[in-house]
């Protein structure tokens, strides 16, 4: 019996669009530049953020990602939204009256800043994740000369997060089967102890995995991943949205 067969990568949406076919390292660079452009845009340049958003919509159309799918996966941002909404109430400085509430002007701007840049940043990241399988992301990073040890760790994490999650599920089932019902605070002890033993098990697994890696000739770096290289043309086309984003950011300083 296999308990919990593991989940597929919820953020990836397989497809065969232009965006999907781009080499991963190109997409990582473009996404990074686009986030940079959003962050660099002055917060008072309200209209520019709309244009940033339109740019993203263009990419979604090209990648054929439906908006609802994106929206559901952007919910990860929710805790930050709470902070952004609270800021206008608690920040200092000149205040405005709005529907009988006294709001701080600085707080409003700061909240807006977090909200709009956070949302756009999350949307860009989700777009990258949606169009790129996880293993390609790692090989893209290694192509971008991220230190090989970081790539090794990321690769192993991809695999063993699932294994450890499955192990944790089995341990939870074993607890529940023996009448554990962690609804009360004093029953948390068992859960905490099983986290401890999960750590030990994972540690021991780590040693066994290392042994298995050594046995197949591992000497400290992963063998080079085979990734498609990108031509000059691919680069220039792919960098176009990033260039537009950066131009928008710069023009923001005139608008604001």
């Amino acid at each position, binding site marked *: 019996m296999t308990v919990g067969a593991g989940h597929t990568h919820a953020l990836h949406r397989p497809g065969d669009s232009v965006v999907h076919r781009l080499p991963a390292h190109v997409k990582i660079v473009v996404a990074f530049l686009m986030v940079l452009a959003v962050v660099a845009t002055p917060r008072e340049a309200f209209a520019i953020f709309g244009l940033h958003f339109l740019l993203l919509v263009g990419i979604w159309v090209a990648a054929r990602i439906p908006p609802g799918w994106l929206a559901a996966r952007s919910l990860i941002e929710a805790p930050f939204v709470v902070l952004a909404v609270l800021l206008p109430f608690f920040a200092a400085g000149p205040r405005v009256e709005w529907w009988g509430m006294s709001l701080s002007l600085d707080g409003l701007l700061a909240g807006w800043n977090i909200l709009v840049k956070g949302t756009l940043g999350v949307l860009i990241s989700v777009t990258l994740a949606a169009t790129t399988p996880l293993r390609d992301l790692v090989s893209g990073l290694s192509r971008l000369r991220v230190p090989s040890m970081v790539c090794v760790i990321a690769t192993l994490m991809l695999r063993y997060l699932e*294994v450890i999650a499955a192990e944790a599920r089995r341990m939870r089932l074993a607890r529940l089967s023996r009448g554990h019902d962690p609804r009360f605070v004093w029953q948390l002890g068992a859960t905490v102890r099983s986290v401890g033993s999960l750590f030990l098990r994972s540690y021991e697994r780590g040693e066994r995995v290392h042994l298995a890696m050594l046995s*197949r000739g591992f*000497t400290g770096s992963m*063998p080079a991943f085979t990734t498609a290289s990108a031509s000059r043309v691919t680069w220039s086309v792919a960098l176009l949205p990033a260039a537009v984003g950066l131009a928008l950011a710069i023009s923001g300083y005139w608008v604001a």
Partner: protein
Amino acid sequence: MTPPSLRVDGLAFAYPDGHQALFGVDLRIERGERVALLGPNGAGKTTLVLHLNGVHRAGAGRVEVGGLEVTRENVQEIRRRVGIVFQDPDDQLFMPTVADDVTFGPANFGVTEPELSLRVKEALDAVGVADLADRSPMHLSGGQRRRAALATVLACDPEILVLDEPSTHLDPVARRELAEVLLGLDRTMLMVTHDLPYALQLCPRSVVIDGGVVVADAPTREILADADFLAAHRLELPFGFALG
């Protein structure tokens, strides 16, 4: 004359904590032989296996694989020659996809394209999981995982295949399918197991280790037919089995 695939002479080993696990083991496996390594828990089977690819270094005695002695300088070539399939496939399949995993070994040993892809394909075909190449190991059945783990080692083209408890956690069909795959490989094999019927099915010869020494080295059928000998070394055929 080709040297034996494996030659162990007077191998003794004590763990750093002083626990002596092996007291002078002698073992010779000719090319193409399939040998079962039997023995109760704690007999020193795993310790012996970890000497074969240089994870442990002999305290006394020596180990040779295909005529090459296990030394610090040779360790990389020794690891290519000795293909260990570990007991838990989840320890062995650590890459995001099966194909990545099968590529890992030969790539480390310096195999390059186009030879590399060919090796991977051959290994996957040999164990019958070619259609699973791009899947994550997480989404495979127990039997598929075991065969994928076998493929990761086959791709390194080892001189000797060492299997640690290959039949554990397999359902009867997967167990039989694995046996068919192993019988079809035509490779030198050392199979560590508690599954005595499996040893009988796959290995004409068995070596029994107990207390850190070899206590028997004979045809598997002979060993399994000697009930008194089995009992003396905490070995036992499953209920209902009897060999004449």
